[in-house]
């Protein structure tokens, strides 16, 4: 049996029977009835698009230092970088290839080549690990970025189109794996003139902050190439005019090495399997790290496909470093029902905290179904009550047992979480937001896009 076909078949079995027939019929009728109102519909769609684009707080990080269009314009106006930037014949051949191959918005190969005047080469050159790579953009209202790669030294005609997507900001390409899979090369590219710095030495402090030593790359280059042996935890940032523009993990950080620790939780019931899954995903392996199960418990699971429905287990585990703080993550293990259990996590369930006796975590719960309004609080064991405060008003509260509790809270783009002890004193305070665009390039320390 073809293994790929078999695996695809297994994935397909996860599909539900989508009840769309009647809605399709009704939708078809409705579609035709409103056909004459198409201009109004288009106007409405544009308005919705603008409203969506203007939604505040969809990105994390400091104050924005550039609007997306301005930043994209800066990238497009930057000179070509990379070892092949001076090679005019290579660039000409590359532009010609891109004009013929960069797909249209619907993903098709263009029937008529793009106007070469619209093609910009942002980067072309060899990078460590034996790769020749190029970043090419077809300009327009929605500039399309294409990544091309091939073996080091290859002519432009031999580079293969890797993927195309809309250009929206600095580019991080970290999927250049060597043939044996053991090495990985990366290319990170920002505007010319931005200062690039790297750090591979995080210190997680007791106050919840992260101290890093940043090493500058050659001034003004605006890009970084590294590989094929990249240390875990390497992070890159771009500054411009003294302000942070972009910061992210250079490589994925999931670790699969099992670790030894006491699965007894500070709050809740023991869940050793979930705790182990969470602990071994944490990447901190330096001496003196202590794995602490902050909270674990049973959790009802509903899986639309049935396999994992039942009572699952969940655990939040922290890798506490000698500096007092550390990264944490939360894993939910499904019921399994004799099958292999399946694990899920959630973007709000991972991060960095300081001393757990003075820190509070608020997170949504991982789910096999649709997201619920549940907000889980994990505070120091001395805490007996938690409040969620937004705009000076308490928008939610819950009693805590050994520091853990749960409440219902509608989606929020930012709130303060306070945990109180029996005397009414605040023992820990933190922030919570639903404002996460997935994980991005940063699982514990978030990717920061200051635009």
């Amino acid at each position, binding site marked *: 049996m073809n*293994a790929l076909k078999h695996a695809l078949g297994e*994935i397909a079995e996860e599909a539900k029977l989508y009840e769309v027939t009647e809605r399709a019929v009704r939708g078809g009728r409705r579609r035709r009835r409103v056909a004459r109102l198409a201009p109004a519909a288009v106007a409405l769609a544009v308005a919705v698009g603008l409203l969506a684009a203007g939604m505040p707080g969809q990105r994390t990080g400091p104050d924005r230092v550039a609007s997306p269009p301005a930043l994209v314009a800066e990238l497009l106006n930057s000179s070509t970088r990379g070892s092949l930037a001076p090679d005019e014949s290579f660039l000409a051949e590359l532009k010609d290839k891109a004009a013929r191959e960069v797909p249209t918005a619907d993903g098709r190969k263009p029937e008529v080549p793009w106007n070469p005047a619209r093609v910009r080469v942002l980067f072309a050159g060899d990078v460590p690990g034996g790769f020749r790579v190029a970043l090419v953009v077809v300009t327009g209202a929605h500039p399309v970025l294409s990544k091309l790669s091939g073996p080091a030294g290859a002519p432009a005609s031999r580079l293969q189109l890797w993927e195309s997507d809309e250009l929206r900001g600095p580019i991080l390409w970290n999927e250049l794996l060597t043939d044996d899979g053991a090495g990985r090369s990366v290319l990170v590219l920002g505007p010319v003139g931005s200062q690039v710095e790297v750090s591979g030495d995080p210190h997680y402090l007791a106050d919840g902050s992260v101290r890093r030593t940043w090493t500058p790359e050659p001034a003004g280059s605006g890009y970084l190439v590294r590989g094929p042996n990249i240390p875990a935890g390497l992070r890159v940032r771009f500054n411009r005019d003294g302000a942070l523009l972009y910061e992210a993990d250079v490589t994925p950080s999931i670790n699969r090495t099992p670790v030894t620790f006491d699965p007894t939780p500070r709050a809740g019931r023991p869940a050793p399997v979930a705790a182990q899954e969470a602990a071994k995903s944490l990447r901190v392996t330096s001496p003196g790290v202590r794995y602490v199960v902050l909270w674990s418990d049973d959790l009802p699971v509903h899986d639309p496909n049935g396999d994992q429905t039942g009572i699952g287990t969940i655990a939040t585990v922290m890798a506490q470093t000698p500096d007092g703080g550390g990264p944490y993550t939360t*894993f939910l293990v499904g019921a399994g029902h004799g099958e*292999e259990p*399946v*694990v*899920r996590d959630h973007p709000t369930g991972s991060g960095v905290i300081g001393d757990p006796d003075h820190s509070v975590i608020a997170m949504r719960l991982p789910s096999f179904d649709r997201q619920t309004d549940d907000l889980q609080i994990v505070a120091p064991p001395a805490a007996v009550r938690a409040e969620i405060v937004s705009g000076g008003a308490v928008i939610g509260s819950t009693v805590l047992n050994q520091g853990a509790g749960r409440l219902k809270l509608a989606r929020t783009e930012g709130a303060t979480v306070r945990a109180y002890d029996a005397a009414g004193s605040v023992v820990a305070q933190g922030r919570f937001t639903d404002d996460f665009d997935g994980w991005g390039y940063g699982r514990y320390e978030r990717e920061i896009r200051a635009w």
Partner: protein
Amino acid sequence: MDEYEGFREFVRARLARLSRVAYLLTGDHTQAEDLLQSALVKVAARWRRVAAAGDPEAYVKKIIYHEHISVWRRRRLVEWPMERVPDRRSAHDESGSVLLRMVLEQALAKLTRRQRAVIVLRYFEDLSEAAAADVLGCSVGTVKSQTNHALKRLRVLAPELADLRWERTEVGS
């Protein structure tokens, strides 16, 4: 005569298969349902003509695949004001088909829509290159190159699957 005569029956009879294709293409129940709904709305609007042509399933599949690829840019806008925070599966399991499936699932999510479509057409639907090209409305050469790009990328994205024999003899280089 009901202009949708036979449409409901057709969809009900094929719903399981169509649902699986939609889920494989999107990797998400909500998006799969939206994709299927969107495609079937188009089919319903011209059902009598589609049914009269004699091969509605082929037509529906074409619509689904084209609809899948055409949202390449649109989805960026509609996903912005996310009402639900995404969660994801993690490949915690170290062995067996569960790991294989989960790793492949995550790798598929990183393919371009067109690459994902050719993988589903060639290796799930088991279509020939010519048939896949017909569904996608492109040349056989495009299917060959897209398949190769997709397989190469899957090997990079999912090195855990490197020992699998994915190549099919008719796939050119």
